[in-house]
């Protein structure tokens, strides 16, 4: 389904991704973890055909991301971390635009928007009358997720989809992600919320400084690192040292 071999990406002098090799079979929900700047988003952008790799190869459903970016884009769905949308469009207009880009017939588009609206409890009037600029963060994220799933992609990348969402919306998104994996779709889930990854992902990949540090099920990682929780494993691998001492020093500096 997703096959990555020695994938690298360099931005000038900075090497964001350094020779990643991964195989992700169909129907798996993979958690992609890493501290900020670990190369998660860059990897996803290469896998969605948005960025060309500097070296190495990657295939999604057999399509090469460098040679066949348009074919790759047809079969993937992507929820960007930024949650960017065209803010001056209404939700309905935005989703219709996205559907047209995938050549989904109008009637089918309307049906799907209706279904997603029912699932996410999106008010039809709000969708058709208000510009996205006036939506709350949660509502906007619902539209972004709907836009990523509208064409029924086989591979879906979620880049920090729970950022800034309230508990109810976050629960809807988590439930949706697990349901999609159960339906046989390959889901790559990038998040900093480790307990969510621990609970819903079948496989966990930890990136650090552009390299894969760990790859396996939670049980495999626990065994390899000799730690119990994903948080401890993550901390051990990505090295946050003397956290308590540094926090106390910072708090003291504020009060002085």
């Amino acid at each position, binding site marked *: 389904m997703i096959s990555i071999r020695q994938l690298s990406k360099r*931005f*000038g*002098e900075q090497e964001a991704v350094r020779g990643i090799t991964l195989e992700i079979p169909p129907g798996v929900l993979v958690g992609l973890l890493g501290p900020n700047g670990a190369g998660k988003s860059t990897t996803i952008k290469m896998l969605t055909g*948005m960025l060309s790799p500097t070296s190495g190869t990657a295939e999604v459903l057999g399509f090469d991301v460098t040679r066949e970016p348009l074919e790759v884009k*047809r*079969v993937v769905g992507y929820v960007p971390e930024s949650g960017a949308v*065209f803010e001056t469009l209404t939700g309905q207009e935005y989703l219709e635009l996205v559907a047209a880009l995938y050549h989904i017939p109008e009637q089918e588009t309307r049906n799907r928007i209706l279904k997603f609206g029912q699932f996410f409890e999106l008010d039809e009037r709000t969708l058709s009358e*208000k510009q996205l600029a006036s939506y709350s963060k949660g509502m906007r994220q619902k539209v972004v997720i709907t836009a990523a799933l509208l064409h*029924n992609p086989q591979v879906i990348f979620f880049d920090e989809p729970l950022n800034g969402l309230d508990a109810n919306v976050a629960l809807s998104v988590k439930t949706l992600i697990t349901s999609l994996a159960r339906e046989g779709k390959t889901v790559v889930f990038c998040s900093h919320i480790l307990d969510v990854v621990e609970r819903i992902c079948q496989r966990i990949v930890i990136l650090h400084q552009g390299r894969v540090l760990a790859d396996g099920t939670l049980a495999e990682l626990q065994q390899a690192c000799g730690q119990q929780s994903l948080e401890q494993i993550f901390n051990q691998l990505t090295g946050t040292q003397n956290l308590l001492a540094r926090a106390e020093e910072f708090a003291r500096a504020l009060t002085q």
Partner: protein
Amino acid sequence: MTDATPVPARTIDLEQLRALLRCYWRMATRGKLGATMSNRRSGKPRGILFVGGMYLILGLMVSSSVFVAMDVFTFSLILLSMTFFVVGSAATLESSDVLFNVGESDILGHRPIHPRTLLLAKWLNLVGVSMFLGGALNVFPMFFGLGARGARWWFPMTHVISIVLLSMFCSMAVVCVYGLIIRLFDRNKFDNFAAWAQVAMSFLFIGGYQILPRMMNRFTGLRVESYAAYLYPLPPAWFAAIDAIGSTENDAVFVTLLIALGLISTAILTYIAIGKMAPGYGEALAKLSETRQLRAGGRETVRQKVRFRSASRWWLRDPVERASFRLVAAYMRRDREVKLRLYPQLGSFLIFPLMGLLDRHSASSPFIPLMTIWVLGTLPIAAMETLRASSHPAAADIFAVAPLTTGAPVFFGVRKATIVYLMIPAVCLAAVAIGWLLPGGHAGLVLALPGLVALPVISLLPGCVGSYLPLSRSPQIGSQASKNVTLIFVTMISMGLLAGVSYAAWKLDFLWILLAIEVPFVAAAYWLLVRHIKNQSLHWD
């Protein structure tokens, strides 16, 4: 399997093109103004309609020139020179938003759109916006032109074709210039080169309207000598020739040659932009959205810092004012969006001194200094209104969080940054051009003094209308043309009146008396406006 229909490997996908065009048009016509006025419901295109209305009136005024027995080619040339300026400026201003919108990468970058379809949609959007404005300017002249000497009954139809082709040419030229820059330079250099290219393009388009007619030394009354060789490199003349088809007033060979030039150059630009540059467009957009290591560009040397600190100790003694000054100064030097919007405005005021240099006849006339100071008057408002927007508007929440009772120190910081980084260099440049390069320059400088004295008061105006918070609005596609029109309009009228009074005083030899009256008046106005701004409570919208 996925439901995305497998599309044949054609590069222009008409269904996608239609969808993108609909989307871009909605965004261009709604903009910020539309959203605000309609309580953020699906906005009506009021902003762009307002500007269109103003051009409609301007077109009506220009139409009156037909009554001075002008031939059809000359009439069309004057009109299309103005349209060239309107259309070219609109295309240049909107292009950075439309063509290289970094945020768009996360929205469309992962969709299966061929770069050629995307670029074509963006170009057509640019053509649409510029044609709307150019069209508004030409609605009345299109019919009044029937009264021009030698005009045939089909003039309105040929004039529509001229406007469409002119809009296509201008937009395609802009696309080509940006396409070339992004191919040649990396993102950091692209920002700088694009900003300066935009200045150059604005200059070119304004030049097409202002300078070129003055270079036509063979103007006899208001008639262009048809065989003049200088008409061949002028794009407005190529398209004006279309209106002269069948006219007995102009030579058929001359008209045909000009039309051929227009069609060939538009076709070449189209081929370069869509055929050659489009394949690399997707990659170029991705290049712009790439993360990069940014150095704090435009840093001062240590000596400059020391000097600035001692000078600013008194001038920027309010800490909020100082912070606001530094924030805006950093954006003026480093931020791509701000640079692209701000610096092209510099092109407009340099036009008039340059006009004087090119046209020795008008060089010593009072027209040059008066017009220069007139345009300079609009610069602080245009610049400060531009500085209201940035690509990081959410960061301006810092002003809402900070315990500020009034936005006055924030506004004064921005105003001072505008004075230091824009107004002083602009005034110096204009003074050098008028005072040293033009004959009779010293008299010209004296003539510009009343306008110069008024500038500090003019620069206070943006702070008088509601709370001024810098970088707090997101730049919206289509909003550039509609922004600040009212304030600038008021300033232009006031500065125009002042220029008229200055001229009269200069003619009647009481310019120094006028200055003596003006200075206390300006001082009082300055004091009152500063007081008004300081008393305004901070309103966060």
